[in-house]
């Protein structure tokens, strides 16, 4: 069990607001870990710092032994961290397959000139991108929508497409920001099975945000809970469910009087 990602004493302040306060954790290779907490507790901020959208105010992010804090999002993606977003951010002007193979662009070796001139090195890469993109869509059951516009897909499939697009970058670590947001309980359950399927069939680690505790209890062996930017609990689902501070954060203080 080697450590893949280490978050060391991370603090992120926006002016006077401390969104994340001295948060530390680590992820080991191949695990599925959930980050939960009430609304506004700083979950997405942690993701945004890990993926380079924000720079940490204090602390550092170590990925595969390298300090990646302060690097640009595209540099971090190139090193093997991919993510999805809480609100769906698909490329409306591209079809489903193209959305996925945009994720392959970062591994493209040919320069623009050989792309314009259709030189053999580019044409080979282009057909390889399309082939592996289709294989990826097939393995996730999205291949029959390859030529469709992403906005024409039903909501649940758009979510899956976002995950497929992130997988196209061949990540070692996949960050999923509320993948089940806005889904009915049965759809959310199906999506969790889908995530389990990804974990089983791709060689990667998954870190996911969810604010409904119920959704992650079934599939995540390890859960981290944060509130007001601070880690308040960490452990397996059973430990989390019985933790006083977690209950307090979600339901308020129990009045014993």
């Amino acid at each position: 069990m080697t450590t893949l990602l280490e978050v060391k004493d991370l603090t992120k302040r926006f002016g006077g607001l401390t969104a994340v306060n001295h948060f530390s954790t680590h992820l080991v290779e191949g695990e599925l870990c959930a980050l939960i907490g009430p609304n506004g507790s700083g979950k997405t901020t942690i993701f945004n710092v890990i993926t380079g959208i924000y720079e940490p105010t204090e602390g550092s992010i170590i990925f595969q032994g390298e300090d990646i804090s302060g690097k640009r999002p595209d540099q971090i993606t190139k090193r093997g961290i991919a993510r999805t977003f809480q609100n769906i951010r698909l490329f409306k002007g591209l079809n489903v397959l193209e959305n996925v193979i945009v994720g392959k662009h970062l591994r493209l070796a040919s320069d623009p000139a050989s792309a314009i001139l259709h030189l053999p090195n580019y044409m080979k890469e282009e057909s390889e991108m399309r082939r592996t993109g289709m294989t990826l869509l097939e393995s996730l059951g999205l291949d029959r929508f390859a030529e469709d516009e992403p906005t024409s897909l039903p909501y649940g499939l758009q979510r899956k497409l976002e995950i497929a697009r992130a997988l196209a970058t061949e990540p070692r670590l996949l960050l999923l920001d509320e993948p089940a947001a806005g889904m009915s309980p049965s759809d959310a359950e199906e999506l969790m099975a889908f995530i389990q399927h990804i974990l089983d069939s791709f060689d990667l680690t998954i870190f996911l945000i969810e604010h409904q505790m119920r959704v992650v209890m079934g599939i995540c062996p390890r859960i981290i809970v944060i509130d007001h930017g601070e880690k308040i609990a960490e452990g397996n689902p059973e430990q989390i469910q019985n933790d006083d501070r977690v209950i307090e954060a979600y339901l308020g203080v129990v009045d014993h009087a």
Partner: protein
Amino acid sequence: MKLKRNTILTFIALLVIVVLLFFAEKSLNPYYRRILNLCAIYSIFSVTFNLIFGYTGQFSLGHAGFAAIGAYVAALLTLSPAQKAVNFFLKPIISPLANVELPFLLALIVGGLITAILSMLIAWPALRLHGDYLAIATLGFSEIIRSLMVNMQSLTNGALGLKGIPGYTNLFWSWGCLAVCVFIIKRLVDSSYGRAISAVRDDEVAAEALGVNLFKHKMMAFGVSSFFVGVAGGLMANLISTIDPKVFLFTLTYQIVGVTVMGGMGSLTGSVISASLYTIFLEALRPLESQFTIGSLTVPGIPGMRMVIFSVLLLLVILFSRKGLMGNNEFSWDGLFRLFNRLRSKKGDGSTGGDEA
């Protein structure tokens, strides 16, 4: 089979165009030739603007300034040393340029390259801005370039402009450059790089999270676009043979924006069609600016009347086809045949009510 038909049709169409250009160049009067040349030049302006705005989503209003750079570079490189001496009578031209005279092709390429380099220097800081802010910054830069041209007397001859630029531009040069420009931009936007810039246009945050280097791709689009803007500027200088800073007012940029919107964002053929229609219409409407009579009503010649009509036409296009003439579709033979079939079936089924709702 179908592919073959389309290839043959394209081949025939290209041949017809070349033959037509040949005859136009040989036998058409200079006025019509000039309009056809301007069609191609405006098409290049519009196609390049489409690459920046329609495909990459960067609202840059620097076209007039960039065209000015290309035009002045090409003009200075093609003017003969004797003609330069005539032009620069107030203040002599700086020495290394005084004796330079390059062939037209080389002058166009150098003009394009210098435009690309200068515009990328401008884009370096400006591309950190988004949307309206980028538009304001680039518009400002475009005006700075123009006012530099008024004031750098020994390089540009200031407000006097340059006269007697050799009229090298003919239909083969202008339409040839347009063909190369469309070919390169089309190949680029259809490639993996094209998908990446479209991703940047649709959602910068998501594109960056997928590993697209925003800065590099925006710069690439900017560089390719402004290279051809510079070339088109050079073609224009060697067509109208007299240029001064006033030719490159920001109104030129607005015309290009209007034409591109009318043609359809994300359609290169739309840009070409729209720019050609615009150029031809603008000339065809010229009589409106002199006195004319409709029945018993006599309309005095109002300068600027053409632009009023053009604005109305633009409004009508936007009203009836919100995405412009071509939307984001390209011209294709299949599309043309579909259109024919639809028109024919509409006519045929007119009495029975038609089969489509």
